[in-house]
Every structure is written in C-alpha cells, then in structure tokens.
C-alpha cells in the first residue's frame, strides 16, 4: 500500500512537471491530432488514410495562417475503446485542440460520444461512416466532411436490379455499425426497386475462415453483396475462389477499394466486373481528381490510386486546414470561431463540391463504379455514373427517413 501511494505521488509529480511544458507549445506552430488505425486488421487502411491527410498538409506546404502544422499521430486498432483511448491521449496528454479521425464506423460513434465531454476541442471525422455518428444524437463539435456508408451506396441498388438484372441477393458483411449502414444504403434502393434479400450473414470483424459462411449462402441467389474491409475482404474473396464460388459479386465501398484490389493472390479473377459505389472512382477524368492522384502519389508507399481512406482523410484534413486558415489559426477561444467557420464551409474537393447539413454531415457526389483491369495490369474502379450531391437522408424527406429506424442487423429487411 505504501509503495502504491508513493508511486502515485511520483506519477502525479511527473505529470505536473511535464503537463505545462506540453501545453506551452510554441506560438508559431499549431498541433493537429491525427487518429487512424495503425494497428490491427485495418492497418493498411489507416496507413493510406495518413497518406491522404499528409497530402492535404503538403498542399499547404506544411503551414496554415503563417503557423507551422505539427501532426501528432494517435493509433487505434479499429475497436471503439482503442479509438477513445487514442483520442484521450491526443487531447488530454498531447493537448491538441483539433483532432482529425477516426477511421472506422464504431470508432466514430465512440469518439463522437467522447467529443461531447470535450466541448473546447474540435473533432473532424477521418473516414468513419456509420450513419448515427451524425444523424441521431450528434455532437456539436463533431464534423464529417466525408460522407456516410449509406450515402456511399447511392445508385448501386437500382443499378444492380435494373442494369444487372439481379432479383435475389444475399449479403455478407462485418458485424458492426459501418457495414450495417452500407447494407442499409444498398437495400434501401434495391428493395424499393423490387429486389429481395433472403439471407444476411454478419461475421465478426477480423474473422479469418469464411468457408462455413460461404457454404451457408443460399444457392439460388443471383449475386452476393459483400461489405468486408481490408484483410477480411481478402480472406473472403480468396476462399470464395478456392471453394469454386460462381455467383457474381456486388461490392461494398471498401471491399473493392485499392486496399483490397492491390492484394497479392488469386482473388483478382473473382473481383473483375464487380459493381460498387463510393466516394471515389479510380478512372475519374476530372482534372481536380487527376491532380489529387499525382499529389497523393508523392507520399511514401502510395497505392497506384488513392483508396477511399486516403480520399476521406484528405477531404477532412483539407476542410480542417481551410477552417483554420479562415480563423487565422486561432483556437484560443476554445475553437468556437473555428467551428463556426467549419459549419459554413463549402469547398471544391477532387471529387466535387462538399458542404455540410445541419447535423454537420457532408453533402457530396457519389460514384457508381465497376472493377476493371487497367492498362498497367492493376485493378481499377471504372467510373460508370456520378450521382450528384447525395445528402444523408438519400434524398428522402428527413421525417420519412427517420421513420425507417436506426440501422442494425435486422433493419432493413426484405426477404
């Protein structure tokens, strides 16, 4: 007990000594926290998110409003508690007043709740895309300039039903808030068009062995909608190929992302021709996108084309820097001016105009895509169609949209 108390005392003294020196960061730098998954199953995704964020910083030559930008990194493993732990470390120990992140759906929900306890810190999303991070019970100081998982699916359900002719589709997705949101976005259109979803498989995140899940998919479906990310997607697709799977696939936004398309192995054959939708398209011809790809490629270890994580972190970091620029890098008022500036911010990103709704969630263009092999042998998402300015309620009036209920395993349903 004595030891214990003494240790505590020493710790307290230590914190007392170091804390002021941290708070007194030099006046000519501004600290921005960058929270992403640098460990766990989504490591590759987090690393690409960082490249995107650093592309935005590099675009401003590392300064904003005459102050040097100092990026403090925080790492999570895609679990909500690790995200909150990393956010707390950045806010309470490193003393950042502006934080960009996190990456994954459940993390976003957890960090939003944490944001409510830190009203003087401004939180800007990374790529986390669960619906209720901003739709229900939002935090005043949490901004999302990247869109949510349901928005990303805009146009896909209709395309699968009308153009591809799929009437019955089974879904396989990870068991947490982001895939719920993606399945919701897909089914909202697909069911409305007249399609049926007889079976939904929810698998734990980080699952390795999908063969039993694959065997449980009904044999009479026209296609399988897959919303898995990173290593999970690679495992599913490889085992689907090994098991001789033949039904065509429909991809969730991160299933046919560059983080998966660049994987080594035989899964490439399964992926070709897979339709999907998301906030980016690799073959986008817009000059702004091409310029962004070039800037992104200067980052070490970059993919042939930026993933949606690089894009999302870029957009959110860019918005953060634009906001900081408007207020002259001044967050001494607890960030109030910065948040006012961010709420009103509307700017052109590589993927078109982005503005915020009243819940501080982005309204932006969404891209319908199909996987093809590029001239250089890399798999690419070919642009099929742009769905302009999708809002969070997918164009449905808000009260009607809220009546659809919160997304979860069983909602929506059209067996």
């Amino acid at each position, binding site marked *: 007990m004595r030891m214990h108390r003494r240790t505590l005392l020493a710790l307290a003294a230590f914190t007392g000594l170091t804390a002021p020196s941290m708070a007194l960061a030099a006046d000519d730098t501004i600290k921005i926290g960058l929270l992403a998954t640098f460990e766990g199953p989504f*490591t590759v995704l987090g*690393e690409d998110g960082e490249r995107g964020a650093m592309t935005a910083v590099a675009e401003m030559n590392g300064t904003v409003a005459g102050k040097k930008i100092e990026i403090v990194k925080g790492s999570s493993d895609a679990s909500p508690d690790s995200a909150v732990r990393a956010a707390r470390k950045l806010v309470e120990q490193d003393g950042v007043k502006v934080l960009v992140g996190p990456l994954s759906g459940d993390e976003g929900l957890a960090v939003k709740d944490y944001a409510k306890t830190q009203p003087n810190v401004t939180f800007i999303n990374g790529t986390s895309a669960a619906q209720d991070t901003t739709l229900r019970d939002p935090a005043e100081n949490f901004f999302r300039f990247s869109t949510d998982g349901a928005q990303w699916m805009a146009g896909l359900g209709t395309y699968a039903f009308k153009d591809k002719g799929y009437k019955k589709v089974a879904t396989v997705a990870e068991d947490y808030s982001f895939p719920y949101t993606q399945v919701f976005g897909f089914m909202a259109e697909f069911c409305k068009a007249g399609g049926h979803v007889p079976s939904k498989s929810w*698998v734990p995140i980080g*699952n390795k062995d999908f*063969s039993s899940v694959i065997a*449980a998919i009904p044999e009479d479906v026209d296609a399988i909608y897959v919303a898995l990310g990173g290593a999970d997607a*690679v495992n599913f697709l490889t*085992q689907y190929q*090994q098991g001789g799977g033949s039904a065509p696939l429909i991809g969730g936004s991160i299933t046919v992302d560059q983080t998966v398309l660049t994987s080594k*192995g035989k899964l490439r054959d399964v992926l070709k021709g897979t339709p999907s939708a998301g906030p980016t398209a690799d073959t986008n011809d817009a000059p702004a996108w091409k310029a962004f790809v070039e800037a992104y490629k200067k980052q070490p270890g970059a993919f042939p084309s930026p993933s949606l994580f690089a894009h999302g972190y870029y957009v959110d970091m860019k918005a953060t820097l634009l906001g900081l620029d408007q207020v002259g890098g001044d967050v001494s008022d607890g960030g109030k001016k910065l948040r006012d500036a961010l709420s009103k911010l509307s700017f052109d990103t590589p993927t078109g105009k982005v503005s915020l709704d009243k819940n501080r969630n982005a309204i932006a263009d969404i891209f319908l895509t199909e996987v093809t092999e590029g001239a250089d042998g890399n798999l690419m998402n070919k642009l099929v169609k742009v769905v302009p300015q999708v809002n969070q309620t997918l164009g449905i009036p808000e009260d009607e949209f809220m009546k659809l209920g919160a997304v979860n395993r069983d909602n929506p349903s059209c067996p």
Partner: protein
Amino acid sequence: MSLLDQPSSPSLSGGGMTRRQAWGLVGLFAAAVIVWLVFAVWPDWLNAILISKKAFVSAILNGITLAGLYFLVASGFTLIFGLMRNVNLAHGSLYLLGAYIGYEVTSRTGYWLLGVAAGFAVLAIVGVVMQVFVFRRLEGDDLRQTLVSIGISIVAADLMLAVWAGGTYQIATPEWLDGALTLPIITAVRSNGASVFLTYPLYRLVVLAAAIVIGVGLWLMLHRTRVGMMIRAGVDDRAMLQASGVNVHAVFAIVFAVGAGLAGFAGVVGGSALSVAPGEDVRYLLASLVVVIVGGMGSITGAAIGALLIGLAEQIGLVYFPTYGIVLTFVIMVVTLAVRPQGIMGKAR
C-alpha cells in the same frame, strides 16, 4: 449428470451394465447420429432448423480442418510447456514469422513445398536460439520466463511490421493443390432427381491430412523412441531425469526446435489456407492457449482433443450464431476449468 449416475445404479440401467459399457453405448449412438446427419438426405424440417445440409456439413468439415491447424500450433506449445514449465507467450510470433518466411521463399522460388520446409527449418533454428540464449538463462524462474517471452513477442511483432508492413499476404498454393473435390456426400436432391454432391476445397483436406500425419508422428516419437522416452520422463520428473545422466539441456533444445518448427510449419500451411497479416500472432497464441488449457498441459492427445473442440465450436458458432460465436469457445474453456481444472487429458499435479 444423470448419465454419470446411471451406471452406478445397476437396477436402473437394466441388467448390470458397467460404466464403461454405458459410455460405449452413448458413444455408438452419437456416432450413428453423426453418420446419419452426414450421409442421409435431410428432411425439410431439419434443413429449416440448420439452414441447409451443405452449411452444416461444411461447418463440421471446416471445424475439423481448422482443428488440424490449431493442433499444429498448439502441439509445439504444449510440448514446450509440459517439459520446461515454460509458458512461451512468443509462440504466436513464431507462427507469424514462419508464415512470412514461407511467403518470401514461395514467392521467390515458386516452390510451395520449399516454403513449407523453410518455414519449419528457420523456425526450428530460431527456437533453439531462443532456448539457448534466453530461456536457459532463466531456468526455473517461471515468472521471468513468461515476462521475457511476452517482451519478445511485442518486439517481434513490431519488427515484422517494420519489415513486411501491415498488408495482407496470401501464400500461393501450387496448381495441384488448387480447386475443389467432390465428396460422396449428397447435400440435396434436385427436382429432376439428380443428386447434388458436396464440393470441398482440396487444400483444406491436405491440411487436415498433414495435421493427422504429424500428430501420429509426434505420438510415435514420444512413445516409441529413446528421445521421446526422455522427453516424457522429463515431463514427469525433470530432476530425476537429470540425475540419471541425461543431458537435459539437449532434450530441451530438441523440444524447443520441434515446437517452434511446428509453429513455423503451421504458419506457412495456415497462411496458404487463410492469409498472413499482423495480429495473427496474437490470434494463434490465444487459440493455442485455449486449446492447451482445454486439452491439458503437456499432452499431445489432449492438444488434439482440445483443437477439435475449439475448431468445431468456432465454425459452428460462426454459422449458427455469429454474434455470440466467440463466447462458445470460452464457455468450453470455463466449463473445462470448472469441472476438470487440469484439462481433459492433463495429469493432476
């Protein structure tokens, strides 16, 4: 409980059946049910309960092949523990390192078997080095050995992240292991009377076969060779073995080499069936811990039984109640610890 009570009251079990016979009957009945479930064409009500026969039989087969993989990892772990009382918490790192080495060798030379051999050989050497330079210095100091092995696993994980980054690697299997095999199991009958047979990836069956061969080989080595005799003697009483003139350190080194080599072997084989990514080390460490706790420390047969239970529980859980599937594994562990703390095949010490 009632099953246990029955044999002790002969009047109830009809005609003085012994405890053994009663258990035999139960076993026969269970076997008959399983055979029927696998080979019969299912009636509709059963399909309705268990999703489909294809899903059920695949889950069982996957459970067994996954068990094969778990057994490969856990057998080394249990051997090392049984002999040296050393919980080597860096065992998962050995698995992951083996997988990465297998990937490098396979992708550079194009020969998968060479990758498997390299995974075993390199990790066997790493195992001996670990034993000689680390664990021998801490002999008899369980707590320090455990802490040092945790330290090694953390450092190893970061070093591997630095070398191979965070990507997901897939070790390419050779052509002759690719594709699916049609098994003589009818999963459904089409309306035109044609039978639909179950197809199953050939590679997974090969993994299972490899696990069985290695399991039998290990058992033979332990029970039929002189080295095996020494190892078993060491498990039972190390001091006595040393006193009778055996070089215990050499025995330790052999066990560590075999255990670590098996982990490396499993890494390559498992990395071809599933995939290789950071975090696998912790996953397989946890799996082998649970397998060894359930099966009993230091027992190869126990590791096989434990692996089978955990593999089946994981796969059946994944298909029938995915959200709570992971709980099933730990329920098995908790029940084992409550009813038989030394593990199913473990010896009470």
